[in-house]
Structures are given as C-alpha cells and as structure tokens.
C-alpha cells in the first residue's frame, strides 16, 4: 500500500476547463448583450452580479425519455396505507410517482445558472469597448519606471545570476576543451584498483597512474566554472504609462433639468466611471454643477440637491479649467469629461462657451462627451438646442468631442457603447 500526499500538487488543475467554460459562456453573454443592445432593454449595468446565463446554450444534451407519457412503473419505499388497486392522484408537477425517473444524468440541466461576479460580467460587458486616443499621453513622463527582463549580461549582482545560462556556457566550454569527466577518472581508478602485483600489472599500473596524473592536471587547469561562463539576467527600465485618470462630471442643475434628465445623466456618468476604473488604476471624479454660476460639489449634492438660477454653461467650463490647472496637470493625468445638459444656455454665453471649450478644455482632455438629455415622452431629438448647435460647430474629424442625444433610460448603454466602440466594431 502506498500513501501519497497530493496536497501540495499544483492547484487549479481544472483552471483551463474553467477558462474554457467561461470562454464559451462569454460568447453567449456577448450574444445576449448584443441582443439586449439591439432590443434596447438594458436596465442597469451596475447590477452585474444578477446576470445569469441561460442554461440552454451550455446544456449537454443526451437522448433521454420524455418526462410524460406512456406507461411507467415505479417502485417506492415506505408504504403505510396503500393496498393493491388503490388510486393515487397524479402529483401536480407531473414528474410521476415521486420522481424515481429523473433526467438520466441525474441533474436538472434546465436549472443550470452560472452566476458571474460583477467584475467578470463587466469584463465581458465592456470587452469590445476601447478608450479613444490612448496613445496620446501614454509615454510622457517616467515617474517610476518599471524594470523588465532584457536578455543577459556579463556583469550584474549575484542575486541576478542566471544559473541556467552560466551552466550552459560552462558545459560547452568544458566539452570544447575536453575536460576529463569524473567518470573517466573513476574508470581509471577502478582499473588501477583491480591490478595485481605481477610485473605486467605493475607496468600497466605505472602507465595508468601517469594517465591519471595527466587527467588530474587537465582537470585542474580547466575549471568547472570559469568567470567567463558567468551570466546575469539583465533588466531594463521601461517607461510606465500614466495610469491615473480624472473624470469631470459637468451637469446643468437649473430648474429646467428634471429628475428624469438627471437620472439619465447619472447613468451615463456611472457607465463612464465603471469603464474608466477598468482601464486606469486610479480614477478621480470631480463633480461640477452649474446654474448661472458653477461650483465643485460632492456626489450627493451633485445629483440630489436642487438649485435655482439661470443657465450659463461657460461658468462650468471655467471651473473645470481652474480645477484642472490646480490639481490635475495633464502631464500626469488622463482627463476625461462628460457633460450633461438639457441644451439650454443663455444666448449671450454661447460664444464664450464655445471658445472656452475649443481653446482651453478640449486640448486638455482625452475625451469630452456631451450628452444631451431630454424628456422621455416627446421626441425632441430632431431639434437642435442652443448648446447643441454651439458645440456642433466644434465637432470636426480628430476632435475629442463627442455628442449624443438621449431620451430614454434604455438608450444610455447603446449611446455609451456607440461612443467607445472599437473602430472595427463600428465598421461591422
């Protein structure tokens, strides 16, 4: 009998199976997603945990008998009252007399639901989205360069000694110089050992000892490891891309923005935030709300407290510029901005807003999304509002400005998807 301790065996033996399963599931989620996007039915992205995959696509069908129909006999234990010929009403579920005949593989395939975590879900969900213009600021400043392996060198610290390389060099040198191996020495010694005292043996012994001496000299002359064999791992500093991002949320909170519009805006901001956090290690959010004047506020105030006043968009842009200059230098931060508004602006401000945006804000930003929200019950999207027509003049190829109109809650994701979809996706 053998007892073997397998506990230290590498873990995750079925990891590849899990990945294969996820890959298969992924395809189905994406299919489902595409349908959802087409059907405009997505309720809430943040509820990722609750998404489950229908069993249908993951089932492993086999030939088996239908659950109903025909004549079936069951043998059941624990009879207390029945006599031959008694009638028993059929159970509601139709499974037969207590289900002695389940599905043949003994598992309820219909009920299989595989839950994804929010992380996993979002991974798949946002998989075919890409941030625009990432190249621009990627290699700008080397604050903490990362080190990456870059071949081998003849100098280095003992800690980075490459044993494999060193031994390989040593071996090839020893072969090239024909360094006698231990085995050869051993063979000679064995032979000497066996020799007797006869004159022939004596003579042979002398020969062998001379030979042995020669080998020994050669071995001493050719070291096992020579300094020229030694190799070290070489590391090279690699510039690390900036992984910090700041997201400016700009919103008009004047009286004309009702709860519905704010809700739309919030959803859009939420998606953007989720998306950014998956691309950057650190994401700051700055909330700027404005009426006829703008201020930086916390999230609660931003979404839930009301304010009254006129609408002067340029104040918000100016505030953003100020904050960006003070705290978020564009050499260190990737700056994203999303503005939500119902499109109102006092007509005197349009020119100033346009100028601020074009000259100051857009050059700072990686991406500037303008989302125009409006009432759900009527179709206003064909009409251009003050702000829309103002911003429209700034829209040109290569610009970081993107504009969309959103009317219904379920349009948020499609619009978002549309903004960030990878190029080839858009084409297809």
């Amino acid at each position, binding site marked *: 009998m053998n007892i073997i*301790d397998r506990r230290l065996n590498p873990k995750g033996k079925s990891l590849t199976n*899990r990945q294969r399963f996820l890959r298969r599931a992924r395809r189905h989620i994406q299919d489902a997603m595409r349908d959802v996007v087409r059907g405009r039915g997505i309720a809430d992205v943040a509820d990722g945990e609750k998404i489950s995959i229908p069993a249908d696509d993951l089932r492993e*069908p*086999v*030939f088996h008998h239908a659950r109903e129909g025909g004549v*079936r006999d069951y043998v059941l234990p624990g*009879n207390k009252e029945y006599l031959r010929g008694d009638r028993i009403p059929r159970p509601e579920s139709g499974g037969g007399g207590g289900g002695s*005949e*389940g599905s043949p593989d003994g598992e309820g395939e219909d009920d*299989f639901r595989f839950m994804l975590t929010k992380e996993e879900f979002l991974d798949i969900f946002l998989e075919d989205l890409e941030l625009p213009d990432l190249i621009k600021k990627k290699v700008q400043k080397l604050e903490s360069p990362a080190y990456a392996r870059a071949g081998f060198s003849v100098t280095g610290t003992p800690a980075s000694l490459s044993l494999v390389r060193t031994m390989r060099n040593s071996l090839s040198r020893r072969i090239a110089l024909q360094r006698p191996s231990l085995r050869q020495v051993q063979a000679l010694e064995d032979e000497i050992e066996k020799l007797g005292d006869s004159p022939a043996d004596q003579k042979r012994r002398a020969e062998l000892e001379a030979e042995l001496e020669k080998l020994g000299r050669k071995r001493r002359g050719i070291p096992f490891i020579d300094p020229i064999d030694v190799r070290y791992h070489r590391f090279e500093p690699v510039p690390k891309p900036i992984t910090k991002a700041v997201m400016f949320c700009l919103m008009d909170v004047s009286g004309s923005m009702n709860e519905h519009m704010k809700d739309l805006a919030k959803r859009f901001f939420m998606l953007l935030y989720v998306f950014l956090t998956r691309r950057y290690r650190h994401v700051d959010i700055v909330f700027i709300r404005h009426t006829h004047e703008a201020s930086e506020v916390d999230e609660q105030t931003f979404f839930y407290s009301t304010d009254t006043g006129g609408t002067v968009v340029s104040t918000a842009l100016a505030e953003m510029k100020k904050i960006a200059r003070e705290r978020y230098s564009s050499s260190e931060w990737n700056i994203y901005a999303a503005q939500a508004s119902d499109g109102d602006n006092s007509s005197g401000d349009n020119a100033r807003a346009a100028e601020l945006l074009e000259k100051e804000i857009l050059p700072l930003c990686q991406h500037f999304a303008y989302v125009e929200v409006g009432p759900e019950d009527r179709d206003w999207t064909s009409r251009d509002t003050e702000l829309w027509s103002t911003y429209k003049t700034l829209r040109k190829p290569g610009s970081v400005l993107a504009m969309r109109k959103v009317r219904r809650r379920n349009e948020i994701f499609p619009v978002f998807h549309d903004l960030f979809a990878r190029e080839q996706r858009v084409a297809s």
Partner: protein
Amino acid sequence: MNRLETMEAPLFTGSDWDYDKLRQAYNAIEKVAFGELGLDIYPNQIEVITAEQMLDAYSSVGMPLMYKHWSFGKHFARDEILYRKGLRGLAYEIVINSSPCISYVMEENSMALQTLVMAHAAFGHNHFFKNNHLFQQWTDAASILNYLEFAKNYIAKCEEKHGFAAVEKVLDAAHALMNHGVNRYPKKRNLDLSREEARERERAQYQEQMYNDLWRTVPGTAGSAVRPDEVAERKKRLRLPEENLLYFLEKTAPKLQPWQRELLRIVRHIAQYFYPQRQTKVMNEGCATFVHYHIVNRLYDTGRLPEGAMLEILDSHTSVVRQPNFNDREYSGLNPYALGFGMMQDIVRITTEPTDEDRAWFPEMAGNGDPYGTLRHAWANYRDESFILQCLSPTLIRKMKLFTVRNDAEAPDMEVTDIHDETGYREVRRALARSYDVAELEPDIQVVDVDLSGDRRLILQHRVRNGVTLDKADTKRVLRYLASLWGYPVRLVEVDATTDRWLHEHEEGDQAASAA
C-alpha cells in the same frame, strides 16, 4: 462478551491523523478483510488531497487525468457554488477502478473517517472492481491511466493542430452520444488499452491507404433501380443495425478526418470504461458499505477502535444508508447504498439464520453457513438488475415496505399495482430489478439504414417501450450533433417496440432545414 477478553490496544486516539496511524489502521483493516471476508484486491494507493482538489476531481468525472473540455469547467463551477454555499458537502473519498487502485481521501477527514474510508474504498470498492465480471470483461484497470494520458495528450495535440473550436465541436457531439457509445454485448474481446496508442497509428496509416468505395460519388451503373435485396445487402455491408452509435460513426461517417474518428474512439472507450459502474451502482456501493461496516465493527469488537471514533463512524454510516420514505420531503429515489447494504446484510442473515420463507425462496443460499463466500459469489457474478432479481428477499421487501405504482398517462390516476404481501413480492422484485436495468432505462436507439441512393441520410430508430417516447427538445439537439458528425441529414424514427407502429419522427441536418 468477548469484547473485554480479546481487547487489543486501540489503533489511535483523538481525531487527528498522520501517516503512521493511517498505515496501522490500514494493516488492521487488511487483516480483517483478507482473513474473514476473503477479499481479493488490486494493490492500493491512497492519495491525500484537499477540498479544492476534491472539487477538481469531481469535475473531471473523478479521473486523475482527463482531457480538457468546457463541460468539466461547467461542472466545477456548479459544484463549487453548491459547496461554497454549503448546500452540498463533499464526498469523503473518490475511488478509481485502476490498478493500482487509487483512492482519494480528504485531508480534513478525521482519523475515524479515514479508517472508514479506507475500509470502504480501498477494500470494498477495490474488491468489487477486481472481481465483478462486468469490470473484468469491459475495463482494463491496469492500463486505464496510461490510456487517459494518451487521450489527454492526443486531444491536446489535436487542439494545437486543428484549433480548439474544431476539437470542441467533435467532443461536444461525442459527449452527447456517449451513452450510446458502448457495446452492450461482448464481441471479439480486444480490450487492451495499452496498445491503443499503437493501434491509433496503424489505423491512421491504413486509412490513408484506403479508399472507401462506399462513398464513391460517381454512380457505378446509371439509372439502377433499387432492388429489394440491395437494401439487405447494404445493411449487411454497413453491419446494420448497430446500437453503438459512436462506433458506427467512427467507422462509417463519410466526412470525418482520421483525428476526428480517433476522438470519437477516445470518448467511446471512456464511455465503455464507465459502463459497468452504471450497471452496478447498488452492488458496488452495497459491497463497499457492507465491507466497511463489517470491518469497523470487527475492529471495534476487538478494541482497536475507540468508542468516540466508532460513534463518529456509525453516524456517517447511518446517514449514508438512510432511506427516506416516498412521501418524505427528502425522498429522491431509492438510495443505492441503503438497498445494496440492506440486501447484503439480508444475505448474511439468510445464510446463517434462515426462516422457512427464506428456505422456500432461496433453497441454495438458505442456511449454507458461508455468508462471505455467498456474497463474494454475488459480487463477482451479478449486476444490479440480476442481483435484485435473484437475491431480493421478501423479508427486505417487507422491511422497506416496497410497493409499485403504475403511472399510465391515459388513466386518470396512478394505480398501486403491488404491495409487500404474498402475491406482490415477485412483482415488486421484478419491477425493481427492471428499474435498474440500464438497457431498460435508456432509450433503445439504433442505426438502421443509410439512404445511399438518395441524400445519404442516416436513419435511426428508437424502439419505444410502453409508449415512452423521447424528449423532443433534447433529441433535436443531439440529432444536430449527430448530423454534424455524420455530415449529412439525420432522421430518427420512433416506432412502437411491440407493434412496429410509427409514432414520431425527428429530423436534423442542413437539407432537412432547407427542405422544411
């Protein structure tokens, strides 16, 4: 009475285990197993694993080496969820029919449980694997692990060569047909899994040289009408009817590449390897449970098991052999452990203290005074169906209060057809035996013809027993897989087994879809 007189030192105290204790317990178990029960086993290999590794083992049907497939990942995901949520515990052990016989035991088992597990798996199951005629006939314990390794490597190589997707497609389809990929009746015995690898090469070479005349696209004689004997001759050439669908496809499917055929063959071999286990669930578990129960009791009687350990063992033993009544909320079918263990305990009773009824029912067995010899004979020569049919006694039927219910879809209600009384015993026993007959439980599906003169449609037949037809949705899915392997449309006809009356028809395949 003799408990005090023959007391020996306990094997262990406390619940922690270590290798020395395991070894001592093993030796003590071995003495009882060989000396009293006369067991004959493969050499044992006991492997200690963690809960996570147990989950791993679960997901790959318990085999230590298995090729990669998403369905194993799916099972893992489900088992893991159930386990993490506490909905299901893990088995204490998994045992593999191989030589040496590998038993996985969990590290968190207490020493008492390890003793139980060793007696159960390393001796009970092991003896059954080695001696039961089905296992002897259909499995090759010595080389299964090597074969699985070959299969795993072969499939990995195929994936490299032909891509994941292509391999997955074939495996998906083959898995769907796995239950219909077994030979139920022995043909020429050629089960030497260790030579499979060499045979694979030979087959590949042979098939490269071969040109399959059957699938010639140019008709030999123009406008030949179908002669009646042509059909018979065609069937003979294709060796139809054939119930081993995977075998048929492997040998005959016109469009498959050699590597695809090999994949089918691998799945078929694995299915065949597990086929005896599906037929001997009651006996196998019964045998293991009986063996562990006998051994731990003997160890306890001789003072080698401390009281605490014995109580723990009994606790898990009783939960294993618990049989809830049919109207219990926990009822989920007859418990094979309970039935098997009950029958084997009953055999001991019949051979040693028979009643008159037993003498009438089992004249050969009753009072022969050799309970273990009788059991060994049964373990070696029966499968569930025949074992129940031969050995289920009226006493046990009464004890379990078994009764039969007939559910006729035509009738308004279900009807109690037999109960545990004088006139009912034989019927109950027969019905129970039938419910363990794998051939009865699984649909009887055979390849009956190929439409060679037409669109090469493959024609299968399901012989419907008792009016129980196939599940439509799943049948459609499986036929789709089947059609993808066959390369041409597939039709499955359901006919009544007794009257040959046409009942239903399923079709799948490209042409079927376009024609519809």
